[in-house]
């Protein structure tokens, strides 16, 4: 019989032994299907601190070199309106933090995110289904286990369950990775992880330590986990860098049906145009590897180039560099290029 604990502070949560449960959409499913062992539970739904979303103060600026002028007499006595707090400028902030237990729906609705991080709000507010978004949380989304059909079948003991085999390698791997980063070919299930990778976000662990998304996700080599989180460690928040107002974004998910389907391949793009040329650009891809991937070579080939269709296509064609698909998922190579191209087109075209 497993027990459940309901910590109310981050400290209590971090100190409680057992498997963390947030919205429950993955934990409940895995337990009901007998896929992962039934350990004690630490239910995070009653920790208010994990549900916060807020701007972070700007890092302190060294003011010793240019001391602020004291106000003049005139300023102090003018008839102007009563002094107000200076308008808050998110661009000058220290970034935006999203608590681990914020739901996808809340992210999709957040005015701050919609205004300043539209590429994240847009994806969070449209992922999965309305019912899942209503309870599925940010950290739960990042930490859900893969959807590989061997892993999700109670009778297959694969690498991810302590076995010695990745069944997909010699069997049906049509939904599996084309980048061979480790023993397991299961792809990472989190779209938000891919988006946050493109955002250069940090993961806040145990309320203090910051780890870049890249470091958090790791290299995909360890089949037992889909990230570098130590056993028992608690993700408390995601920290986004200060927003970039000129940013445009594009997201594309290749699926057979119209909606509500795990991606065959997906890609996310953030970019800024400087005149007709591409300035800052971040490109990430999902459902092609055990972890979401930043496509640095695609980014490099775009930077400083004119945003022409030919240049976008040339860059997208680099997306699968280094891929080693299996016979049954070679289609993902073309699909990856296609998704990256479409995400680029959408970003250049104004964003969606």
């Amino acid at each position: 019989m497993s027990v459940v604990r309901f910590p109310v502070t981050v400290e209590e949560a971090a100190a409680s032994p057992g498997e963390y449960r947030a919205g429950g959409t993955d934990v409940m499913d895995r337990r009901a299907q007998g896929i992962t062992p039934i350990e004690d539970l630490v239910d995070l739904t009653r920790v208010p601190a994990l549900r916060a979303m807020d701007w972070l103060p700007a890092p302190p600026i060294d003011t010793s070199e240019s001391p602020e002028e004291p106000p003049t007499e005139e300023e102090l006595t003018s008839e102007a309106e009563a002094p107000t707090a200076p308008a808050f400028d998110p661009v000058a902030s220290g970034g935006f933090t999203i608590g681990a237990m914020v739901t996808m729906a809340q992210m999709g609705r957040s005015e701050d995110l919609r205004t300043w991080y539209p590429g994240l709000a847009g994806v969070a507010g449209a992922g999965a289904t309305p019912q899942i978004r209503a309870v599925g949380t940010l950290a739960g989304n990042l930490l859900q286990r893969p959807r590989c059909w061997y892993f999700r079948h109670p009778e297959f003991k694969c690498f991810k369950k302590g076995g010695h085999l990745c069944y997909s390698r010699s069997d049906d791997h049509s939904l599996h990775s084309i980048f061979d980063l480790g023993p397991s070919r299961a792809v990472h299930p989190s779209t938000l992880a891919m988006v946050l990778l493109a955002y250069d976000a940090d993961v806040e662990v145990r309320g203090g330590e910051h780890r870049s998304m890249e470091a958090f996700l790791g290299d995909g080599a360890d089949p037992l986990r889909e990230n570098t989180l130590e056993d028992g460690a608690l993700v408390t928040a995601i920290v986004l860098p200060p927003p970039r107002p000129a940013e445009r974004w594009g997201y594309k998910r290749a699926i057979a049906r119209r909606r509500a389907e795990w991606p065959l391949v997906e890609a996310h793009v953030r970019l800024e145009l400087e005149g007709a040329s591409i300035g800052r650009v971040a490109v990430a891809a999902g459902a092609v590897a055990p972890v979401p991937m930043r496509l640095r070579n695609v980014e490099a080939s775009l930077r400083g180039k004119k945003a022409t269709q030919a240049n976008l296509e040339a860059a997208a064609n680099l997306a699968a560099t280094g891929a080693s698909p299996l016979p049954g998922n070679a289609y993902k190579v073309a699909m990856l290029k296609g998704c990256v191209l479409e995400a680029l087109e959408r970003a250049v075209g104004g964003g969606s």
Partner: protein
Amino acid sequence: MGAAQEASAGEHAGLSAESTASAAAEPHERVTVEATINGADVNLSVAPNTSLLTVLREGLDLTGTKLACGHGACGACTVQLDDDCVCSCLLPATSIQGRAVTTIEGLGDELHPIQKAFLAEDALQCGFCTPGFVVEAAAFCDGWRAEHGDVEPSDADVGRAMAGHLCRCGAYVAIARAIKGACAGRFDGPAGPAPRVDGLAKVTGRALYSGDMRPRGLLYGALARSPHPHALVTGFDFRAAGQIPGVVKVVALLEDGSRVRFAGQEVAAVAARDQASAERAARAIVVQYERLDAVLDMDAALAEGAPAVFAGSKAAVPVHKLAENDDSPKPRPTNAGEGIVFPARGWQGNARGPAGVFSAQGRKARKEVVAARTDTTGATLLEERRYEAAVQVHTALEPHTSTAWWDGDSLTVCMSTQAVSDMRDDLAHFFDLKTSQVTVKAEYVGGGFGAKCRLQMDTVAAVKLARECGKPVQVALTRAGEMVTGGLRPGARIDVAAVASSAAGTLKAVEIDAWNDSGVAVGTNTSLFWRLMYPGAAKSLRDFDVVSHAPPGEPFRGPGGPAAFFSLEGTVDELAGRLGMDPLALRRRWDPNPIRNQLYDRVEALPLWRDRGGGGGGGRYRRGVGLASATWFYFIQNNMQVQVSSSSSGFKVSCATQDMGNGAKTMLAQAVGAALGVPYSEIQVEVGDSNLPRGPVSSGSRTTASVAPVAADAARQVAADLCEVAIERWELSGGEVAPGGIKHEGGLLPWSEILPNAPEQTRLGKRGREPNGWYFPIAVGHILVGNLAPASVTVTEVEVDTRLGRITPLNVWAGIGVGRIYSPELATSQVQGGIVQGLSYALYEERLRDNMFGRVISSNLMNYRIAGLGDAPPIEVHFAADPLDGIAGGGVGLGELCTVGAAASIGNAVAHATGWRPTRIPIRPDRVLEGAGS
């Protein structure tokens, strides 16, 4: 409802009345939860892993919320949690602390505008997914109107809002229409007439399905299944399973020494006080096996030296006897078809066949093909191609469910079945009882599509456990179990060779070899559909059932049809292209069927067809329009009985058939109402009980033709009886039956005046002589085949994304010729659902197994994908106007006819759009990229 009462009702569902003080970060084995459910404060004690759905259904008897997939993919379990809609199957019950839950039962005493809209628009069929749709749509509708006013949302808005719901009947077109109408404020007034007689029970969640039956002391069962594809059972060890708390009984379903022939075959079962414990115990059952060599798929089964799955056996056994017939010298496979298994020449290894009784001049046809292969004169055109279709599973949203209990020697089973009468007989036979000792009930059935026609081991398990435990036991397949033994359409490999004359443009010969991937079953016939179309050519039509260690094929809505027409109509389009002819013109030339020619006239005038252009274009997105002709049989189950009775409370029609969403109840009411001149909504309908007069199996599109004329006859007899009574009692002169009552010299005496003052009348109907005669003169397996073929033409427009491989159906026109339509609204719903299922089959569905053990890996509705609301295009339905002369009642069923041509029309549309001929179903994105990628 009081909280204390609820808590005690849920004692076995992870709930108990005791409460534990809550302290931060203290460990709890039980958690006290205070919440509001449907407006009432509740105080529950729940286990940590218990879902809200379990609490609602097992603990609080709120059975309107359904368990269908258990993974959050289908939305049947959707409830409102404060202002959000959530999947209660995945929500920890502890998460409702301090919050308000609203289920379908709590939407209000008055119908919500969404419920009225679903009723009026007939936005439902079997009704099993309906509570989930209604709960979500009601929340969406309220939110939409608050934000936008009474404005109709777009299709995309509705598609996004309903993305988390699936309807296997495919009622999406009507669902979207209902939601848009309710948002626009068109259903705020009093509820209007509902086309479907049981619609109200379905939109309110009051319809009770087999799993909603909760007799006192109910236990829950679960099945243990073989992990091996081929093995001998050498022993059972139930100790570990028996020690799991809550477990009452573990039973073997096979005897020691039995052979299992597919991974997932049922071997043992357990009953426990709650579902979660039963499932945990089922996983703890230990079975010893001696593993044997297996052939896992069609290629392995056909390979030289492959071990024989069933060597040389002749006929087929019922599916629940698969493991039982090993003692016989030649163990037999099961029957994948709807009727009898057609004779075949014998077995070649694991291939049974050829079954070739439908050939016409077969030898000549094969000679013509050989000649055409070497023809260098250009006088003949040879079109040769292999078509393939994946295995498709039925996966009705209501899993196979049986709630069984014994009362002394009498057995009652509430069963999700398409065959209450047959199931009574089969259960009596299996458990060695008289049929009078068995009652089978199925008042509501949550979709069947052919998979619920037979007695299966899950029902056997429920009955056995109920007997052993002395208590009612409910066994429902899990979704993963449903994907294994819940029924499947065999895969198909169809080798086509067709010869046309270049000069005359005639079809000279076809040679079809069809290989049916049927698992441990036989009896699929795919090639025969080539016989029913385009007469005149020599035809060699051969079918082979290839058996392997895989779950058994079962009849699936139009067995053999979708793949057959995909190959047939694809071949006709290819030949049209090579003859330089318009596809419609070629069909007109080859197809003498008068109904279809009437439909061809319609198609000719359709803008969708007329303006289709040359298809394709060079861009990324390419549009094309495809057409497919099709036909189906007209079956009668003979000697069916329907009773009509009159009493002071009105007329009632009774029959031991069932309504699985196809509208049988409404059709019976229509038939009786029409015969009496009474609105059908006033006719009481009683079905789904084996004690009623014997009715047909809901399979083979036979229900309407089998019972409607019989019902009408019974009604006319009752009317005649009442006429006699009335003449005597009211001393009428010139009295005769007329619409609405008895016409006499003084006017019309309405039924409403006669019934309260007349003795009750009860009559069984009889079927008259069939004016047109029968295709076969005698009934085979109680089935008569009508001497006329219903006809359909389907036109589909698609858009193909050549970059990412997606095919999007944009528009469908379905022309159906089945004669008299008893209920236009329901018939339209059924056709639209058949089209949706057909496009889902064509584009998405593929049952997959691993290649080491043959286990089903597409084991849930996230990786076995069926069409959602957003995938359903506008579907216009046209019924050919004339009644069918020579058919009793003037009309026949259409459930299968409407679905068998859908995939074929999509195949032709994709070819028109891209110039690439798809030959493999499903036409997946990767196949599109390979064939037509840019």
